């Protein structure tokens, strides 16, 4: 079935098709319509999922932690301040190795008060032990949720599916919606690692002294290291069943291009048009979309950029005092390699300002024109 739906509706379809048993969420713009859509379906009796009302995002995640421990597939969605409020529980979910899937609709954190898209909310949770997957369009949003449960339940780590505020959340696109039967074949029911049995009580998340704590963290790292392999397997399977796949990254444009442009989220869609235009004008350019931020796809990127001299990256986020967070990760990933391209770190579109085709073209042009960046941070579209 093909329908014209918003990104938030695509999320709701993904949740319904994943046969989620429990949803607990607290509303926040621009996530609200996800929860509205789902709670209305539940209230009308058409969706047999339990909806647990809570007074905060912290409680929403806490509820999911309990439910997931109890062997229930569960879901929540949030944004910005809501995600920040959840922070403690995000660590708990990964520490307890619970395969929770959450959608975060990217929105800037205040002050100044702002409800528009940027990635500083999800990226400031990068060290919480969650897998993070960024989406470019509404179809990818729906598909990524289905994949996320497979990945999460396989490696026993929580997964955050991320989409841009308004540009995706509130914008309609044509989306192919798989049938329940098809999804059932792709996504089996969730079986917890340690099923709860009241006859044999166990205590979960008990204290681990310095004798053992270290090793539990090591195991989380090992689980993260499995993600590239597991995610590829899941994506391949998805592609064979539904004809769509995404990879950890996606390269497009001219082979062996002189300049590569790296983007994530909806900026990629705009970049595709700019790169096509510049190629037609005879420039040697190509683009890379980064879908998976955590664990960062070091190897996939290294393979994709071989031979490239210059790499431009646009970050729609700012880690004040450093610069763009994707750029940081990229530099760290490439540092051990023998050959590394020059990296041009652009920051643009904070707080929802449009990253227009002309801005993207300006970034590529700057990279073409310079051997190395003149500044550590290249501000794109800033009114200085």
């Amino acid at each position: 079935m093909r329908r014209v739906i918003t990104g938030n509706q695509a999320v709701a379809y993904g949740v319904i098709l994943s046969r989620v048993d429990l949803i607990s969420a607290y509303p926040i713009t621009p996530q609200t319509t996800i929860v509205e859509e789902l709670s209305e379906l539940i209230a009308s009796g058409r969706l047999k999922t339990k909806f647990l009302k809570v007074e905060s995002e912290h409680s929403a995640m806490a509820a999911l932690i309990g439910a997931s421990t109890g062997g229930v597939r569960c879901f929540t969605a949030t944004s910005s301040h809501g995600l920040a409020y959840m922070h403690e529980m995000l660590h708990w979910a990964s520490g307890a190795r619970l395969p929770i899937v959450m959608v975060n609709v990217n929105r800037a954190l205040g002050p100044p008060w702002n409800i528009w898209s940027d990635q500083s909310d999800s990226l400031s949770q990068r060290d919480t032990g969650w897998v993070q997957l960024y989406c470019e369009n509404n179809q990818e949003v729906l598909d990524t949720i289905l994949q996320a449960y497979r990945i999460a339940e396989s490696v026993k780590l929580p997964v955050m599916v991320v989409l841009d505020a308004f540009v995706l959340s509130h914008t309609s696109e044509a989306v192919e919606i798989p049938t329940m039967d098809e999804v059932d074949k792709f996504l089996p029911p969730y079986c917890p690692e340690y099923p709860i049995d009241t006859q044999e009580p166990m205590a979960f998340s008990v204290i681990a002294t310095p004798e053992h704590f270290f090793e539990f963290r090591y195991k989380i790292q090992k689980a993260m290291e499995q993600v590239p392999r597991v995610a590829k397997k899941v994506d391949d399977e998805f592609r064979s069943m539904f004809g769509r796949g995404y990879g950890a990254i996606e390269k497009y444009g001219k082979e062996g291009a002189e300049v590569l442009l790296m983007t994530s989220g909806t900026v990629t869609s705009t970049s595709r048009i700019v790169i096509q235009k510049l190629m037609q004008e005879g420039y040697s350019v190509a683009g890379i979309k980064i879908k998976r931020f955590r664990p960062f796809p070091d190897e996939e990127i290294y393979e994709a950029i071989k031979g490239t001299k210059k790499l431009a990256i646009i970050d729609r986020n700012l880690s004040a005092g450093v610069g763009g967070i994707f750029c940081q990760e990229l530099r760290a990933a490439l540092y051990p390699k023998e050959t590394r391209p020059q990296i041009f770190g652009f920051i643009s579109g904070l707080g929802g300002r449009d990253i227009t085709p002309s801005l993207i073209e300006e970034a590529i042009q700057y990279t073409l024109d310079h051997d190395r960046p003149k500044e550590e941070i290249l501000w794109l579209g800033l009114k200085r």
Partner: protein
Amino acid sequence: MTKQLTFKSASEMPMVSISLGDMDWNKTGAWRAQRPFYENKTSPCNEACPAGNDIVNFILKMRQGDFETAWRVIKDENPFPGVCGRVCFHPCESKCNRGHFDEPVAIHALERFVSDFAINLAKKKEKLPARKKEKIAIVGSGPAGMGCAYHLAKLHYDVTVFESLSMAGGMLRMGIPSYRLPKDVLDREILDIEELGVEVRTGVSIDEHLRVDDLYSYQAIFIATGAHQGRGLHIPGEKGKGVFNGLDLLKRVNLNKKIELGERVAIIGGGNTAIDVARSVRRMGKKVVILYRRSKDEMPAFEEEVTEAIEEGVKIRYLVNPIRIQQKESLKRLECLRMELGEKDESGRRRPVPIPNSNFFMEVDNAIIAAGEEIETSFLPRGIDKKDGIVLTHTGGRTGIEGVFAGGDLASNQRTVAHAIGSGKKAALAIDSYLKGNEVDKVIQLLLIGNGPSVSIFPYLHPGERMRSSHVVAFEELNMDYFEHSARQKGERLRGKARLNGYGEVTSTLIQSAALVESERCFGCGTCNECENCYLFCPDASILKRDETLSHQVDYDFCKGCGICFVECPRGAISLEEEAR
């Protein structure tokens, strides 16, 4: 602790920190800095009831649909639920915490419902237990005398009540019109007392023929003869023909005696007797005007009664004081002065002050004086002190003569049915203590409800049961998250005109569904009703369900003292104290 595991490597370890055994060894109770504990407390209604009814518990039983036990809970303290449910001025409702939320619980209506329900209960003829050898005489069969007799009989004493009139009941029978208190309700409750073995000797006056001294063969005497003497106005003409005393008139009405009245009747006074007289006379089809020397705010009559009187066509003229009643053939000509309010007097009400030269005249056929009642003292033996118009008593009604006790209206200026019942109960306790050689003050002190002065006899008869602390639960101690606004249930009321056709009851008893709704409105201040909030909220699963009598207890091995149970208890039945170290 079962076993400390030490793993050599990460590969040996489980995925997460998990104890495959249970955590019973980990007595987290040791972390506790504060300790929650179940403690039933005193509800404000219980404390406010002069008769000492266990209101919160009888309503709790009602909520459970157990009306019979509800009735027994009231009867434990008060032999007159049918009377009180109708005529009590319900100070319990004025103190009801629900009044801070929407409207107080209609406690009187629930008490009335329960007493009416009990009519249909099959009466078990219980064999009376063996009597104690001590005999007790009670003078007066009103609520104080019969209340005292009831409790003494339950304490197995041999009780004889002396009543000067032909029927028992005192002021309940003679002073309250049947549109407020039907006679069958009173008869039933008096019969219940007699069935406990109390002998009521009617038509026996204590006077020069039979004196209190003659009763000294009894081991104790309780005098509760009430206040039946109409207080005079001390104005010229008040002894004239066609001028009646209010209480005398009510007696005649209650005894179905003929009363000759003209068309226009003036009633002088602002108390409950004045209102009762006015409403009774209205039922005879007469025009009635009440003359009261102060304003509406100072009126001692209960507001509800005043409202109902006005609905029935009674006119009230405030700030008017008759100073002379002139006889003009059969007509009475009342000379009155207009009054204004001055400074507050010793009663706390503003004193009426005559306006000079404001004299005016009113023509009526009859005047009825209802300006208060005084006690009869001529029969009292020497050694009983009097002060400010009442017999002077100590705790439990003790008088200056050993073994002689006094109560009810005779010994109090708080002249209500509930106060009389309460004083009868205190006297019963005092007499029992006296005869057992116990110190009355100590016994009464232990039985005070909250901060008193009302007492409960239940713990005296059943030590250790229904224990509660004397702390009175304030509204702020309740958790309003668990209550929703709901309207106070009311019985049907006859319309003003329909009431004038006879002496039928003005207000009906609640129907069962309404009574249940009303009982649900009770917060149950300070009394655990096993709502299980504590059990559901405890994050440490440290609330244990126990047997039926005491349903829950805190598992102190594991309770960390977070206090969530204390906060989430809707009704303040859990306390929190600092852990003793």
